[in-house]
């Protein structure tokens, strides 16, 4: 019987119980809503106090929340059965993009490519972990070496296709989400360590394969001061913004660094610097704590999940979310090279938000579709 514990006891449903019947997880929802509130507050300041920008962002948030609620209604078992189909469609679209991309290098490349580039890679952000989790959960854990290799191929194909677009940030995040599934499935530490060793040996090869602009990013990351008005500009200005924020920040709307308009992409990828400048260490500390709490809830949901598939998937989604945050914050604070990854749910923009909330929809679905175990 699919019954929630509350209704089984015949008592009136509490608010939390009611949320559960519509497959929504209260604590997660609360955390996400707070993040969105912070996003609007900061965007108002970073976007030059323009209400139009806020309205557009709110519309996107509403749409993304609807997607989340809709996905939360789908039973995880159904997602498992859909995984191969969605993955194949996503692959076909990725190939289409590559062919299309070669044809369309005219003046309108951004518009056309932008529309197409986004969609298939966003699908893959969820399709890859679902498929890998479904495949690995078919047999008892830990997976055999052969299964692991097949799973790696499943991850590598979309990753390489997206890296070729080129969209290194997205490719890396998709690979991460798949690799996390393999890691959670319990492959032995020996294998993990040998792969890491192999990867560091392959770094020079990777360097050779990289685009010029990507190499430049890595070089400036090593030494930003070498090119203060060119490639290092982002990092230098971002660090000044963060550092000048101090312990308590300059106050909301008072950030001179960001408002003087030389902190680039301050509504999108570099919005963390605006928060650090205006709200200081206390503000960003609380923000990071919020991200950790949301991830912790995700990990708890993974731990409570009832099938291996659901555990692997939920764990991957929760951890990938944190990787997003880490990559963005690492980039803005100068710990990591500059890759175009937005700060989840805070940065201005729509597509990544929809995918993220779809992921949280899956988490909620996993948590609220549990069957009561017979004693």
């Amino acid at each position, binding site marked *: 019987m699919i019954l929630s514990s509350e209704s089984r006891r015949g008592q009136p449903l509490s608010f939390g119980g009611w949320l559960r019947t519509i497959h929504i997880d209260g604590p997660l929802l609360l955390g996400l809503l707070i993040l969105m509130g912070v996003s609007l507050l900061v965007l108002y300041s970073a976007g*030059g106090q*323009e209400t*139009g920008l806020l309205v557009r962002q709110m519309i996107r948030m509403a749409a993304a929340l609807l997607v989340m609620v809709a996905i939360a209604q789908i039973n995880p078992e159904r997602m498992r059965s859909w995984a191969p189909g969605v993955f194949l469609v996503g692959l076909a679209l990725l190939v289409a993009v590559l062919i299309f991309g070669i044809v369309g290098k005219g003046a309108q490349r951004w518009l056309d490519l932008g529309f197409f580039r986004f969609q298939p890679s966003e699908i893959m952000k969820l399709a890859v972990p679902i498929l890998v989790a479904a495949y690995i959960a078919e047999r*008892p*854990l*830990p997976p055999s070496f052969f299964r692991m290799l097949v799973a790696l191929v499943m991850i590598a194909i979309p990753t390489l296709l997206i890296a070729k677009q080129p969209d290194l940030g997205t490719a890396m995040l998709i690979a991460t989400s798949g690799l*996390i599934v393999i*890691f*959670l*499935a*319990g492959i032995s530490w020996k294998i993990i360590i040998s792969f890491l060793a192999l990867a560091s040996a392959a770094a020079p090869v990777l360097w050779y394969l990289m685009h010029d602009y990507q190499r430049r990013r890595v070089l400036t990351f090593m030494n930003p001061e070498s090119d203060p*008005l060119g490639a290092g500009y982002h990092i230098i200005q971002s*660090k*000044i*913004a*963060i*550092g*000048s*924020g*101090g*312990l308590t920040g300059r106050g909301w*709307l*008072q950030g*001179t*660094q960001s*408002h*003087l*308009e*030389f902190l680039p992409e301050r509504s999108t990828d570099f919005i963390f610097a605006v928060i*650090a400048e205006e709200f*200081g*260490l206390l503000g*960003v*500390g609380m923000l*990071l704590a919020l*991200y*950790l709490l949301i*991830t*912790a809830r995700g*990990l708890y949901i*993974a*731990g409570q999940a009832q099938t*291996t598939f659901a*555990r*692997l998937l939920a*764990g991957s989604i929760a*951890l990938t979310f*944190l990787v997003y945050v*880490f990559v963005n*914050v*690492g980039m803005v*604070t*100068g*710990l990591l090279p500059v890759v175009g990854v937005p700060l989840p749910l805070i940065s201005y923009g729509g597509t990544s938000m929809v995918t993220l909330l779809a992921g949280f929809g899956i988490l909620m679905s996993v948590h609220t579709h549990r069957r009561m175990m017979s004693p």
Partner: protein
Amino acid sequence: MTPWQTFKDHISEYRLINGRLIFAGVFSALLFSAVMVRLVILQVYEHEHFEALSNRNRISIEPLPPQRGLIFDRNGVILAENVPTFSLEVVPEKVVDMEATLALLTTLLNLTEEDISRFRERLRQHRRFEEVTLRLRLTEDEVARFAVHRHRLPGVEVVGRLIRHYPQGHLFAHSVGYVGRINEREMQIINRQNYKGTLHIGKTGIEKQYEDLLHGTVGYRHVETNVQGRIVRELQSVPAESGQDLYLHLDINLQRAAAEALTDYNGSVVVLDPRNGGILAMVSKPDFDPNLFISGISNRDYAELRDSHDRPLYDRALRGRYPPGSTLKPFVGLAGLEMGVVNEQSRTFCPGWYSLPGHTHRYRCWRHQGHGQMNFSSAMAQSCDVYYYDLSNNLGIDRLHQFLDLFRFGQRTGIDIPGENTGLSPSREWKRAFHNEPWYPGETLISGIGQGFNQMTPIQLAHATAILAMRGMGMTPQVLRASRMPGSDRLQLRAALPEEPVPVVSSRNWEATVESMIEVVHGQRGTARQIGVDLPFEIAGKTGTAQVFSLGQDEEYDAETLDRRLHDHALFVAFAPADNPEIALAIIVENGGSGSSVAAPIARKLIDVHFGLQKEPEIEVDDIEQ
């Protein structure tokens, strides 16, 4: 496997995954601790270093606003220019005591309450480190007084700016329009980036219509500044790109002549070149000085303009709705010929009145004693109402309305100035929709002589006349003749915009109509015969007198005793030369009385000026751009 074994496998699997989840959780927490350490280093240990970088030696990006394009008439006379002025700018962040500063400035420069309250309003819209204008157009005297007290006024500076100026003052107030301060609503629409450093935006007329061309593209310079905000050095700069200069079809000589010819009447004159739709003159009286709006018109001045009974801000040429009166007759007449309701030979007897069959109500002809036997040509020349009552009655409102549509009555002409009114060409459907009443046959008669519900704008009337002049080949009216990219000396001419030609059964009908209009000006009994003398070519025209005040059945119109506001409107439409038209015009003199004695002579003056038939005072040479 036994079920128990499977269950055991599950347990061990879950242990495995949970172990990994916990490991990942701990690892994540460590990564975040690393980030926090990084943040503590940046925000606590290196805070002073970065704060110094941020505050004392900041690189700022200064916008370089583009120079707004100039506007010229067809002769190269400048209609809108940019003049250098001094303005008083305040950077709030650098002001120590704002109240004291404002108080001192008030006594120094005689600032008004209004200046101060507007400044406070602007202050709210800007950030603390942005320049806010306190006062535009300082006199040299004021600049000198400020300089003496400058040391007491940190954060206040006198800055040179280019400000729009309209050297022709009132003359092009409605057509060229004016620029004004960018308001909050406009802020939402414009590309804010491109308007950084720009104070003004086109509000009306050409200035608004071609804002995109006139404005140009903003430039930037990256500068390094010291503690006081003084620029230490320029790092990089992208120059602004000036807006395009605009060359209009408008002819200042004709415009001035038209404005003067209206004397102190309210009204409107539109003159256009029917061959390409170019607007040669467009006057709406009364007018105003557009220069008042640039530096912020005072509330009192604005209220005066806005509340004036004569409505000087209202562009009559595009928005004024007037009954066309008899100036509609050429179009109604052509409809009659086209539909076969009349022909050039058919006659109607005018006893001075007309009654619908079976009715006793008498629709009066303007000539009470009657015109006698009238044909197409004489009815036009003498503007016989009875002939047109009969024609309209036989035509019916549906066919009449349908035909007038071809001349774009009741529709916007599409002129390149915003705010045009559609006017009203009544129809059976319109009356049903807006008055919920059936159409009465008597209303067809009244419509046929351009009275009743008919409302046309001067631009519509001029445009329809131009279509007639071109025998059906209409051109969309345009004020802009050409534009010039900054730095280029080549004019990019605008193409004329041909409209769908008016289809006719027989081209002879055009000639019959035009010939009857020539009779109006050159015929023995034409209503405008006094303007038809001493001409090397023929004018085709039509007078009109539109009732403002309706009279009872047997009342007499007595100009002496009526308030001037109730006097009839005087109208005249014409084109010349009749066989090869170069100009077409429409004139409306509000409360002018009679079309033939007031409006027609204005047309003759304008035709004389345009064709150089009469010595007119020449414009001064130094007005002309080389």
